């Protein structure tokens, strides 16, 4: 028997989900659309960004939104040498934990930088807004080094 031809074909499986945000993330995204970043005050006084619905310690519902700064500090980061299709940038960039001014916990986002050497723990960064904001986390296009 001769070796059969190898047959292969591209196949895409798509799950076209629309997810409910809930009231708290909904508020966060609504504020992003207006180019503001808000967190929420927890029972111990910490400001959590992005805001969460329930207190991390007491599990009580949270409601006190706090606007935080559009600048912050890199707490830690990972350099992406070879961005993949799903990544927010098509050139090398950093995923970073960024503690925004006025926030007490860091938030993850991407940082645009010319090279890995340019990024450092403790570096100051500034949010860069998308040309058009739609109420999605990518309304912050990225953070840039200050």
């Amino acid at each position: 028997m001769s070796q059969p031809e190898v047959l292969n074909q591209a196949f895409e499986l798509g799950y076209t989900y629309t997810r409910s945000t809930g009231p708290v993330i909904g508020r966060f995204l609504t504020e992003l659309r207006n180019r503001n970043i808000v967190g929420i005050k927890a029972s111990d006084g910490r400001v959590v960004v992005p805001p969460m619905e329930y207190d991390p310690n007491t599990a009580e519902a949270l409601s006190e939104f706090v606007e935080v700064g559009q600048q912050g500090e890199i707490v830690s980061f990972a350099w992406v040498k070879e961005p993949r299709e799903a990544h927010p940038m098509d050139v090398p960039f950093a995923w970073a934990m960024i503690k925004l001014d006025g926030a007490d916990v860091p938030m993850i986002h991407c940082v645009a930088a010319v090279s890995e050497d340019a990024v450092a723990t403790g570096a100051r960064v500034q949010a860069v807004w998308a040309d058009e904001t739609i109420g999605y986390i990518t309304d912050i296009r990225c953070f840039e080094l200050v």
Partner: protein
Amino acid sequence: MSEEQEVVTVVKAPVYLKYNFTAGAAPARFLAQIKKGVLTGQRCPKCSAVYVPPRGSCGGCGVATEEEVVLSNKATVQSFTIVYIPIPNNPIQPPYIIANVVPDGANVSFIHLMSECVNEDVHIGARVEAVWKPKEEWAFAMDNIRYYRPIDEPNVPVDQIGKLPVTGLEG
């Protein structure tokens, strides 16, 4: 919130899984025959069960299958469902029938479309035959068989479904 705008309540969060699907040896042989307009299965060397489409092994015996068996264009409806809900990107207008059909000479069924039938008259044990696309449209694809349609032959008793020889009822 500074602007008079609707509050965000939902986000679009689609997930796309992109595969490069490789058929594998047994399905590749099967599809090569389908491209020539021939429906084939593979017989288990141990229990003689004929699988279509072949996966290259017998699930019951756990042994590789090698022997290729040419199957009939005639088949029997093992089960079916009437589809009333439109499926996105599917050009077929509901209601239509999706059936598990067992080709004569095979011992397992596969899923295919039925047409040229009165949906309400389709039943388990009904005899059907494959309607192929024109030869020039044959590809490495199961839909070279456009659909199955009813034929005027006696019903197959339930305990005989999946056990007919390739020669069919008379065989």
